[in-house]
């Protein structure tokens, strides 16, 4: 579905953060090397939801373009994988994590871009969260490479 209103974008962002947190909570018990990091990510996701909500509820005004501030945001393109196969190994978990982070980053970047002139406070939060996602991937990628080994798996 095309996300066009502020409330739909906020709700979708919350869903992504929550599902991503669920994934990390589950993955933490399967991948002990990164358990602490994954649990930290899950906790951070909850803080991200708060940051988005705080920005939205602080600046929302019926006089601004809340219903029309976003475009080119089909929710299907940014859906997050919360589940994984029961026998998923570290490589698979890391791949899902990286894909999720990439999707969320792309979602935040697009949301920030379209709302920049109209809902600037939200746009700023989205940009910050996108940058944090990129940082997570910079951390996760070397782990994936390490797990896959020199032959790439």
């Amino acid at each position, binding site marked *: 579905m095309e996300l066009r209103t502020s409330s739909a974008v906020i709700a979708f962002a919350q869903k992504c953060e929550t599902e991503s947190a669920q994934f990390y909570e589950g993955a933490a018990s399967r991948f002990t090397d990164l358990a602490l990091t994954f649990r930290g990510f899950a906790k951070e996701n909850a803080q991200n939801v708060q940051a988005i909500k705080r920005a939205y509820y602080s600046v929302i005004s019926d*006089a*601004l373009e*809340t219903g*029309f501030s976003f475009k080119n945001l089909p929710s299907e393109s940014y859906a997050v994988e919360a589940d994984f196969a029961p026998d998923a190994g570290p490589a698979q978990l890391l791949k899902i994590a990286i894909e999720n982070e990439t999707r969320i980053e792309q979602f935040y970047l697009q949301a920030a871009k379209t709302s920049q002139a109209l809902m600037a406070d939200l746009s700023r939060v989205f940009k910050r969260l996108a940058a944090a996602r990129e940082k997570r991937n910079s951390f996760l990628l070397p782990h994936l490479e390490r797990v896959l080994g020199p032959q790439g798996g």
Partner: protein
Amino acid sequence: MDVARLQNYIDGEWVEAQTGEYSDVVNPARGELLARVPLSSSTDIDRAVKSCARAFAQWRNTPPSARARYLFRLKELMEDRFDELAEVQTREHGKTIDESRGETRRGIEQVEVATGVPTLMQGYNLEDIASGIDEHCFFQPIGVFSHIAPFNFPFMVPLWFIPYAIAAGNTFVVKPSPRVPLSQTRVIELFEQADFPPGVVNMVHGANEATNAILHHPEVAGVTFVGSTAVGRDIIYKTCGQTGKRVIAQCGAKNFIVLMEDCDLEKSMAGLMTSFFGNTGQRCLAGANLVVVGGDSFYKKAVDAFIEAAAAIRVGDGMDESVQMGPLQNAQSKERVLGYIEKGVKEGATLALDGRNLKIADPNLPQDCFLNPSVFVDLTPEMTLAREEIFGPVAGILRAANIDRAISMIHDNPYGNAAAIYTSSGQAAQRFRHDVKCGNIGINIGIPAPVAFFPFGGMKDSFFGTLHGQGKDAIRFFTEAKVVVERWF
């Protein structure tokens, strides 16, 4: 089915109205009956006003900083129940949940600003106006004020007035619109929880009888009203003049949005859609006439873009977060708008987008109150559609050869509530801001709604009174200047 029968709030108690007359409060998106509201009698108003008058003696002597603390508590309660307050608005009014949350924020902002009363209400003085003589000016509360509320912003509009009036030491009777009484009922419950002394704020539900009782009550010092020009000018303003009451009457509008050829059309479109179709066109700051200034190719480009964007608006139940425009507030409103669409067609305007072709997000919803956006093109200023307030999702597009002609179109219209210009020219914007006789001007802003620190403007047939609502103007309206000239022997 058991449906709540609403009560009045008088002297710190929830009480039955002295009436047998009730009307239905209906969710316009779903057709469900939400509550029954009493159409209170003049006896109910009299009880409420007398309660206010009793409370005034003590409340006016409560220090402003102590009065402000009650408002801080109220603000916190509102923040805690933010989403609940927004959902009530969407259910009873039909607006989208984003719009309701926006309305909630803007309402709370009024309470925030009113907490500044210890500074807002300060007077001034001058020593030695003559040798050994000093002069002081104090601003003092006046007594009992009242607000007669409209249906289009059931939460926010009464808060343009109540917080300032009571912060300044007055007491207050609010009469919500009987079409949307639930939001204000919830607000009054929060006043009760904030522990305001009995009688400082009373609420009486009702319609014409209650309104007349407020206007004629000798103990009411002033009335604030937001609604149509016909009622605001011919009934509220005139009666208050006759009965010696202060008055703020914020009335109807027909707002022009001028689109200059040098505007950023793509970036402007979201603002234009919000302006014309936000709140389903039921706002006094809504864009109504889009005046395109430029050559043929720009006119075509602008019209095409506007129609394409309007046609893409998702219409449905405002509780659905994907919906961009809710229903009209009731079936009578829809009938009224339909009447204008038919009149426009009869007068020869071109209906380029016909909102009567319903396309609702959930087709199972009852269709009594829904309309999709309509756009008329090639309108001329003399046509009814270009002159009268429609208060619905109908846009008219006109052409002007230059900014002078656009401004003269605005001035030929009897209303003067708001006007906006979309341009990248500072010179055009400055000219527009300076010359246009409207109380609220937008520059690349489609809804120039003043925030709580600023007065809510309005001129010509859009405003009757002297001082405006919100901010310092409101504090001045709710206080009387007293000058003391002082000498000590």
